[in-house]
């Protein structure tokens, strides 16, 4: 009775085989495999062929082999084999553990793959970093060397412009100057990357109007996109605090670099700029900035590389710019403790976004900032006198022009003349009675700093003392000092807010 049950429930996973010292099978219970009596175990499977040395071992010596793969008629068995040396031969106990080992294989597969992938990713990043570092130091040195010859080319172009030239020559000179400008922009970008690398750039934490910032971008880029026949869609999340603490200038650089990049690589469709609140906690707000386009797109393998300097997805010549915009954006974000994210599909477009954590003042402190009535306050501060002040705006960037016009004309207290070119400023200044000059410090031909110096050296008091407010995108202290030393009253750094501008004007007019 019991014997019957034993047979029924006996271990069907384990086979016992007994062989003599030269490998001839004496007995086998054939639970797993048919192993014929009197056959040689060495012929049954390759595994046993390498077992010979074991057969001469001492009695009761046990050797266990784990996880041996055995194919019998194309069926795979994964088994453990225990070999025990006995006096008359060797006992082999074969245990079928196929299921167990199959799940072990799955686990090991996942583990090994992820370890290897991690290692290769780390390696690749190291390589990229190394390459980037090498390239940057090379470029830094090179740019530095380029500065002087470029300065001479620019100076000589100026001199040339004053000589008698045919129309054709003038045309050529114009191109020459444009190329000089591009080269100069490129050098500036390169050197600013150098500043970041050298840790000489600090991120400010100053209160500024984030919503105003958004509106400024919206205004400027709507026009730029329109120029290229593109749609520009903006969205602002009303839950974002109006005022935040941060570095407005750097944020501006990041956002405009992304937008310029989108403009550059999009020939048709829409560019989107979205500002969304991720969350607010205590007095911190995490805000997401997102720029999407329907342009060229970036292939998967270039996703990292596009943030390297001078990289281009499309090597074609007709795309202008320095190739440094995204690198600068990435580095600045790193300084802010954030990271640029990118999803893109070749031919479909790109989607760049990043999060910035801003501190923002709680309600009571916001009250301290004059906002709603700033305009009235400003007009009041100009005094009872109802005449309109005459302002000369010297600015070559038409977007900035438009913005300033809009702000100033809204107050209804100003008459504004415009000069694009440094060379024209004197004529205007001499023949008009200006109360104030608003001047871009970085004009194409004669720059704002030089003009300011010349005006200050003028022999007539009414001209010599005209207050000048400088406007610049270059926030380096040395640049600002140059402006002030030349005789500007105040320097506004782009992008600035309306209040800042009006306040500066009111102060200068007193």
């Amino acid at each position, binding site marked *: 009775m019991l014997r019957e049950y034993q047979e029924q429930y006996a271990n069907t996973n384990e086979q016992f085989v007994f062989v003599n010292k030269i490998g001839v099978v004496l007995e086998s219970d054939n639970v797993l495999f048919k192993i014929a009596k009197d056959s040689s175990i060495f012929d049954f499977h390759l595994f046993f062929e*390498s077992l010979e040395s074991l057969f001469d071992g001492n009695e009761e010596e046990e050797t266990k082999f784990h996880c041996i793969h055995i194919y019998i008629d194309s069926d795979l068995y994964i088994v453990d084999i225990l070999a025990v040396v006995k006096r008359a031969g060797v006992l082999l106990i074969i245990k079928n553990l196929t299921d167990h080992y199959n799940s072990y294989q799955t686990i090991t597969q996942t583990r090994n793959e992820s370890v290897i992938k991690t290692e*290769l990713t780390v390696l690749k990043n190291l390589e990229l970093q190394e390459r980037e570092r090498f390239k940057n130091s090379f470029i830094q040195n090179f740019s530095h060397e380029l500065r002087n010859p470029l300065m001479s080319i620019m100076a000589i172009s100026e001199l040339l412009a004053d000589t008698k030239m045919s129309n054709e020559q003038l045309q050529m000179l114009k191109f020459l100057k444009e190329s000089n400008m591009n080269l100069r922009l490129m050098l500036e970008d390169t050197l600013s990357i150098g500043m970041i690398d050298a840790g000489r750039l600090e991120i400010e934490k100053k209160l500024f109007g984030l919503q105003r910032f958004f509106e400024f971008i919206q205004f400027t880029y709507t026009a730029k996109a329109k120029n290229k026949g593109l749609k520009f869609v903006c969205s602002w999340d009303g839950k974002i605090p109006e005022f935040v603490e941060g570095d407005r200038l750097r944020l501006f650089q990041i956002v405009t670099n992304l937008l310029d990049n989108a403009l550059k690589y999009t020939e048709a469709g829409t560019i989107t700029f979205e500002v969304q609140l991720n969350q607010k906690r205590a007095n911190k707000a995490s805000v997401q900035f997102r720029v999407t386009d329907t342009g060229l797109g970036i292939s998967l393998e270039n996703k990292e590389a596009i943030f390297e300097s001078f990289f281009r997805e499309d090597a074609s010549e007709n795309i202008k710019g320095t190739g440094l915009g995204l690198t600068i954006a990435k580095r600045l974000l790193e300084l802010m403790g954030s990271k640029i994210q990118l999803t893109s599909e070749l031919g479909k477009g790109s989607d760049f976004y990043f999060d910035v954590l801003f501190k923002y003042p709680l309600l009571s402190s916001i009250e301290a900032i004059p906002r709603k009535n700033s305009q009235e306050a400003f007009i009041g501060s100009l005094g009872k006198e109802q005449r309109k002040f005459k302002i000369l705006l010297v600015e070559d960037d038409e977007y900035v022009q438009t913005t300033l016009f809009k702000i100033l004309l809204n107050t209804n207290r100003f008459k504004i003349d415009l000069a694009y070119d440094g060379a024209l400023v004197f004529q205007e200044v001499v023949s008009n009675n200006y109360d104030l000059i608003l001047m871009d410090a970085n004009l194409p031909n004669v720059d704002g700093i030089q003009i300011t110096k010349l005006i200050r050296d003028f022999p007539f008091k009414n001209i010599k003392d005209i207050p000048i407010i400088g406007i610049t995108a270059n926030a380096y202290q040395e640049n600002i000092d140059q402006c002030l030393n030349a005789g500007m009253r105040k320097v506004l750094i782009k992008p600035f807010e309306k209040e800042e501008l009006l306040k500066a004007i009111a102060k200068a007019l007193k």
Partner: protein
Amino acid sequence: MLKSKKIVVLGHFGVGKTSLIRRFVTDTFSDNYTVTIGVHITKKVVEISVDKTMSLILWDLEGTDDIASIRKAYLLGTHGAVFVFDISRPSTFQHLKEDLRIVTEQMPDIPLMVVGNKSDLAEESELKNRLQENSISVDFLTSAKMGTAVNELFLKLATLLSSDA
């Protein structure tokens, strides 16, 4: 008479042990990685000279990043060994000296081939530099993918084994 010799192929995981054997035995290659667990055993008969053949029993062992943890039973009765590393992954050769010391300690007095695999993934000159920097000397630089030096490797080992016997 056909002599059979047991050869173990070992090294860190993913270095191409299985691929080398596969290239040698069936002259094929796959880019997919299937992790080996335990051991797979295959055989290939090689002709050492005109009238001399040898049967190589190749033990393709599970890779591990800790060579000391290889199960001793697998190494019993081994006639020759191949230690493989991956030239594209420094972690597989960073401790090569120590790894080889452990291997020879466990299998003294047998021929051992040191192989840098995946040679197709680097320029030859760069590769030589890399090995020199790490003061590594190898017997063969192979590519299971391209078939470079794979037959040579096993034939060399077989030749060494035949003169041993």
